[in-house]
C-alpha cells in the first residue's frame, strides 16, 4: 500500500490503560484483574489460545462487553461508562462484518455520516481510505461480490476512515488462507507505520504475533502471563506455558540448585546460568541444539545428552532432527543441511549438545 501523500498529518495514537479488568461468567473467571499499559502508537498483540480471554478483553475495550470490575482509560480518560457507539475507537472484526445491503462506498462512509462529518468532505475521505487499501476502483460493488481478501481491506478502510487514534482488530485474518494472510499481515504492518496510531491486535497464531507486533501480551486463562517484545517472548519466556506457546521448545523438568539443574527423567545434570533462581523448567530452543553422530564428551561451556534419532525432516535449507532420549522424552533440533553426509539418520545414536547460556531456566508459572 503506497503511502498517500494527501493523508492528513499523521494523528498520534492514544495510550490505553487497562486497570485490573475483571470478567466473570457464572463460576468461570474469564479475566482475572488484568492490567496492561498500551503505549501510544505501538502495535500490541493480545495473544492466547481460545478461552484465554483475549477477545473478551478487546470487546471490553471496545465497549461491547461490560466488565465486572476495573477500569479502562484512553489517554488518561476513563471510558468504562461510555457506551460503545461513543468511544470512537476503530474496529475490524473477524469475518469482516461489512453491511451486506450497502455498497463498499456506503460501508466506508457509514462511520463518517454517523459522526457528523460535513457532507462535502465525505467523498474525498472515502476515496482516500479506499486508495490506501488499494480498493479505490471498487466503490460501487456490494460485499457479496468481493473476495475475502477484498472484504477485509474494505473493513480496514471503514475502520480507519474517520481517523481514530486506536484501531482494534479481533482476529481479522482468521478466515483467510495462508498466502493471503501473510500478504495482509505485511500490509497491516505497513498501515501501522504509515498511520502512526495505536493498533491492538488479537490472534491465537503465535507466528502472526511475532511477525507483526511491537509488543505481545500473552494471555492464559484470564491472566497476562508475559508482556514483552517478540524477542523477549522467544528468547526469555516467563514460564513453561510461554515457552511452549511461542515457537517450538525443548523442555526438561527438574530442580535447580545454584549452577546445576538436575534432570531426573534423563538421569542427567545440566549446567545452567541465569534465569529463574528456583525454576523447575529448563528450556532450549531447537536451533540451539547441535547434533553429532556417536558419543561426544561435552566441553566446559556445553551440556550434552545422548539420544537416538527418530526422524529427519528436510525443509529446504533447514533440517529438523527429531530424537528420543533413553527415558522416552522427544526432543527437536534444527540444523543447517550439512554439505557432506554427517551420518545422522533415523535409528542412529547421537549426542545433543548446547551452550550453557542457551539453556534457560524458567518457573513453572509466571510471577503475576
Amino acid at each position, binding site marked *: 500500500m503506497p503511502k498517500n501523500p494527501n493523508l492528513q498529518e499523521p494523528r498520534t495514537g492514544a495510550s490505553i490503560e487497562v486497570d485490573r479488568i475483571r470478567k466473570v461468567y457464572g463460576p468461570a473467571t474469564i479475566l482475572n484483574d488484568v492490567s496492561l499499559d498500551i503505549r501510544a502508537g505501538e502495535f500490541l498483540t493480545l495473544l492466547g489460545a481460545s478461552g484465554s480471554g483475549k477477545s473478551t478483553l478487546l470487546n471490553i475495550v471496545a465497549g461491547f*462487553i461490560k466488565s465486572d470490575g476495573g477500569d479502562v482509560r484512553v489517554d488518561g480518560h476513563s471510558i468504562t461508562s461510555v457506551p460503545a457507539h461513543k468511544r470512537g475507537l476503530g474496529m475490524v472484526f473477524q469475518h469482516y462484518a461489512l453491511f451486506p445491503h450497502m455498497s463498499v462506498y456506503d460501508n466506508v462512509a457509514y462511520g463518517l455520516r454517523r459522526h457528523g462529518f460535513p457532507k462535502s468532505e465525505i467523498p474525498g475521505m472515502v476515496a482516500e481510505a479506499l486508495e490506501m487499501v488499494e480498493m479505490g476502483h471498487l466503490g460501487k460493488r456490494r460485499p457479496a461480490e468481493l473476495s475475502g481478501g477484498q472484504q477485509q481491506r474494505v473493513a480496514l478502510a471503514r475502520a480507519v476512515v474517520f481517523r481514530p487514534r486506536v484501531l482494534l482488530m479481533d482476529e481479522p485474518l482468521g478466515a483467510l488462507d495462508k498466502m493471503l494472510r501473510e500478504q495482509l499481515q505485511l500490509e497491516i504492518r505497513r498501515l501501522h507505520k504509515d498511520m502512526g496510531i495505536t493498533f491492538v491486535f488479537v490472534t491465537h497464531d503465535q507466528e502472526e504475533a511475532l511477525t507483526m507486533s511491537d509488543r505481545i501480551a500473552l494471555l492464559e486463562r484470564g491472566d497476562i502471563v508475559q508482556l514483552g517484545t517478540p524477542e523477549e517472548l522467544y528468547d526469555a519466556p516467563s514460564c513453561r506455558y510461554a515457552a511452549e506457546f511461542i515457537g517450538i521448545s525443548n523442555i526438561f523438568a527438574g530442580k535447580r540448585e545454584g549452577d546445576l539443574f538436575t534432570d531426573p527423567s534423563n538421569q542427567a545434570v545440566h549446567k545452567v546460568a541465569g534465569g529463574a533462581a528456583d525454576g523447575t523448567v529448563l528450556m532450549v530452543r531447537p536451533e540451539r541444539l547441535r547434533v553429532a553422530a556417536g558419543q561426544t564428551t561435552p566441553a566446559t561451556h556445553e551440556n550434552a545428552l545422548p539420544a537416538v534419532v527418530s526422524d529427519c525432516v528436510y525443509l529446504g535449507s533447514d533440517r529438523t532432527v527429531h530424537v528420543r532420549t533413553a527415558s522416552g522424552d522427544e526432543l527437536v533440533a534444527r540444523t543447517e543441511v550439512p554439505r557432506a553426509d554427517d551420518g545422522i539418520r533415523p535409528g542412529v545414536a547421537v549426542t545433543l549438545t548446547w551452550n550453557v547460556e542457551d539453556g534457560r531456566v524458567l518457573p513453572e508459572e509466571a510471577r503475576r
Partner: protein
Amino acid sequence: MSLTKSVSTGRSVRPRARSSRLRAYLRVDGWGLLILPLLVFLVVIFVVPLGMLIAKSFTDPTVGLDNYREIFAESLYLKILTNTFVIALSVTAVTLLLAYPYAYLMTIATPMWRTVLLLLVLVPFWTSVLVRSFALVLLLRDTGVLNTIAQDVGLISEPFPIMRSMKGVIFGMVQVALPFAVLPMYATMRNIDTRLTKAAQGLGDRPSGAFWRVFVPLSMPGVAAGLLLTFIQALGYYITPAMLGGPKNTMIGELIVQQVSTVLQFGFAAALAVLLLGTTFVLLAIAGRFMNLERMLMGRS
C-alpha cells in the same frame, strides 16, 4: 444497549441471594419491553373476550351450572359430543395411515422431490377452506364428479352417496389434517440415524424387520405429536363437517354456531365452547410434556 449484561458477583448472604435472584428473574431490558404492545393487544382482544365467554357460560340465562347440566342431560347434545370425538378420532386414524408413509417417502426422496412433496402437503393449509369444501361438494355429491365418472366407467350403476355421511366428512377433513400430521412426523424421521437400521440388518434382521423394530419405534415421538395436533384440530372444525356432513354427523362447532345464530342461546353456546376449549387445553398440556413447542415453531428454545 450493551449486548451482554454483567452478572452480579455472588458475594451475597443467603437472604439477599434469594431476593437478588428474584430481581434477576424479573429483570426486563429495553428489548424485552417491546413485548408489551402485542401482549396488551392480545389480552384485550383475545384473552378478555375468552374470559367473558367463560363467564357467560355460567351466567346466561341464569347464574349457575344450568348450561352444563343441559348439555349432559339431553341425549341429542351428548350424541353430538360423542360424534365429535368419534369423527375426530376417525380422521386422526385415517390421517395417520396416510401421513406415515407420506412422511417416510419424504425422507428417502431426492431434495427436489422432497420440496415438491412438502409443498403439495401444505396446499390445503393455504387454500381457502371454503373453496376447498365447495369443491369437495362438487366432487362428492350424487351428481358430482366422482359419481359421474364412476357411472360412466361402469363401476357402479347408480350414484353412491358419499356426502351427508361420515365418509364424506372424513374425506374432507383428512385433507386439512394431513399437513399437521406429516410435518412433525417428517421432522422426527429426518433425525433418525440411517445407520441404525443398517446396523440391525448387519446383525441379521431382514429389512422389513429392521424397519418395524428400529425405525418405527424411533419415529414414535413425531407420530405422537402429529396425532395429538391432528386430533386437537379436528375437534374444532366447523366448515368442512357442516358442508359435507348430514344431520347425523353434526359436530360441536356446528352446534355452537347454530345455538348462536338460530336460537340465540349465548350462554349455552358459551358452555359448549368452554367444554371444547377445556378439552383442547388438557390435550395440549399432555402434548407439552412430550414436545418443546417453542423450539418447534420458532427454531429456538
